[in-house]
């Protein structure tokens, strides 16, 4: 029964997954295609970048040279495109089983069969894990593929490792969204809460980077742990960051399962 529901959830995710995959492939591919231009014009681009306020640089994770693949990837993908894509994917998927399907009256149908609530939500969580993993893989694979074609010299292993960080970041979003969705049974509320938390964290991260007195705030934001620049450029994995994302995701999903099995499913 779990496998059946998982397959149905995957099927229902096709349009969302393909749409987001096209976005990250096209955008990532275009960005990777211009990387050699950045390499040959590094000095000029760095001079140009100095014209921008440091807050803006901090917001996009530009804390080094764009000629470095890690900084390049973080600037255009990791700190910009991926949080948006991951948020859309995580919110859409994680609000669906407990909130959107309850609101539309679909969840009553499978939950009126011998399928348990745990298996129903578990199958949906497994779908989130798989779809978000696929999106993270497509994101780095697109950049890698085009980078290879244009001779960018990206390190595939490090990029794929960065993909794991992107995936864990998205899973953490999904875990939090899932538990809010179970508590509220409202897709709108759950989506708003998650999006609000992300935007607040994004702003806090900027403040933390430009105001040394508030640097500690950075530790409270997911964006502190989502950087993959050091991983791609130096092979230095942020195990703490990955651990934080993993714990948040697992605790969020586990709490969702716990609460979903015990709460009233109001029409």
């Amino acid at each position: 029964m779990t496998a059946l529901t998982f397959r149905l959830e995957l099927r229902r995710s096709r349009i969302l997954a393909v749409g987001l995959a096209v976005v990250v492939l096209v955008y990532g591919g275009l960005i990777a295609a211009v990387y050699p231009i950045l390499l040959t014009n590094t000095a000029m681009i760095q001079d140009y970048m100095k014209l921008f306020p440091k807050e803006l640089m901090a917001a996009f994770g530009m804390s080094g040279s764009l000629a470095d693949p890690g900084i390049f990837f973080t600037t255009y993908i990791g700190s910009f495109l991926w949080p948006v894509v991951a948020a859309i994917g995580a919110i859409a998927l994680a609000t669906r089983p407990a909130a959107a399907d309850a609101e539309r009256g679909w969840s009553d149908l499978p939950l009126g069969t011998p399928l348990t609530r745990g298996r129903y939500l578990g199958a949906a969580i497994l779908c989130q894990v798989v779809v978000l993993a696929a999106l993270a893989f497509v994101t780095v694979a697109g950049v890698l593929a085009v980078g290879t074609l244009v001779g960018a010299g990206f390190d595939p292993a490090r990029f794929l490792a960065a993909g794991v960080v992107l995936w864990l970041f998205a899973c953490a979003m999904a875990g939090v969204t899932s538990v809010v969705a179970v508590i509220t049974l409202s897709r709108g509320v759950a989506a708003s809460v998650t999006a609000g938390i992300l935007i607040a964290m994004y702003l806090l991260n900027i403040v933390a980077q430009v105001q040394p007195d508030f640097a500690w705030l950075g530790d409270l934001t997911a964006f502190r742990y989502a950087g993959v620049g050091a991983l791609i450029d130096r092979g230095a994995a942020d195990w703490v960051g990955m651990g934080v994302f993993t714990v948040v995701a697992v605790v969020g999903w586990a709490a969702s399962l716990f609460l979903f099995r015990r709460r009233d499913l109001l029409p």
Partner: protein
Amino acid sequence: MPEAIELRGLTRWYGKRRGVIELEADVHEGEVFGFLGPNGAGKTTTIRMLLGLIRPSGGSARILGMDPWAQAPAVHRQLAHLGSDPGYLGDLDATSLLDYLGALRGLQKGAWRSLAERLELDPTVPVKKLSRGNRQKVGVVSVFMGREPLLVMDEPSTGLDPLMQREFLALVAEARTDGRTVFLSSHNLPEVERACDRVAIIREGRLVKTATVAALVGDHTRSVNLVLGRPAPDAAFAMPGVTVLSSTGQDVHVMVRGDVNPLLRRLGELDVRDIAISTPDVEDLFFRYYEGTVAGSEGRPAAAAGPVIGGEAAR
């Protein structure tokens, strides 16, 4: 042998808002039980508790002896359910939907095909492109495609055309013949009258009457229309159990409750040109229990709400 459904003081509050209050009922195995009430009376709340989707605030419900909240999967192996407005996934066609729901109930792929043909449902059309009636057919097929001993349905025939309503009633009758129990929530009164063995009427969250359809209909209440050769004396119908609803002198409409013999004896003394005696239908009874509370909202003025019998109207 446990009852198919037992409600014991079943109560549900949504904060301060009333859901249902102290419902007491038994649904026997193999019977078709109608659950009558208008929107907001508490029918869906009751069904959601029977399905274990929400918990009672007080009292208990048992399905075949099991607690639907604590033993939901075991209960769901014994019942098939159709909600009042199922939120089908519009992009799927009926084939995918019914195969999925059937597989969750342990049915083979395509177990629903003969029923779909019987109800003239095209299973290849995406659900979002189906008319309301055809979407309802998907639900009817879904609930009848298995062999569960208990069928719980909430407004199952809404949107079905008269032919399909007849087919639906035939399916209910076949289920009863097979020994299955049917719990049928409805405000389609003729449907309940034709399909059910017993009926419970719920009003503002409380059960106001549970009885067999035959007992309800034959509750010793008769509507008598008379055409007299000449006006009856003023006190002609002044007798226990008889209420004059209208009189124009020669045309008289009375309601008789209980023994009709005293009235018949009195009629023998009058110049009766014509007489029509009818039994109130479930609809009349339904409005009798709702007399004065829903007349406006149901679009039926109280004065026209069928036989009016004051004593039992609002308990």
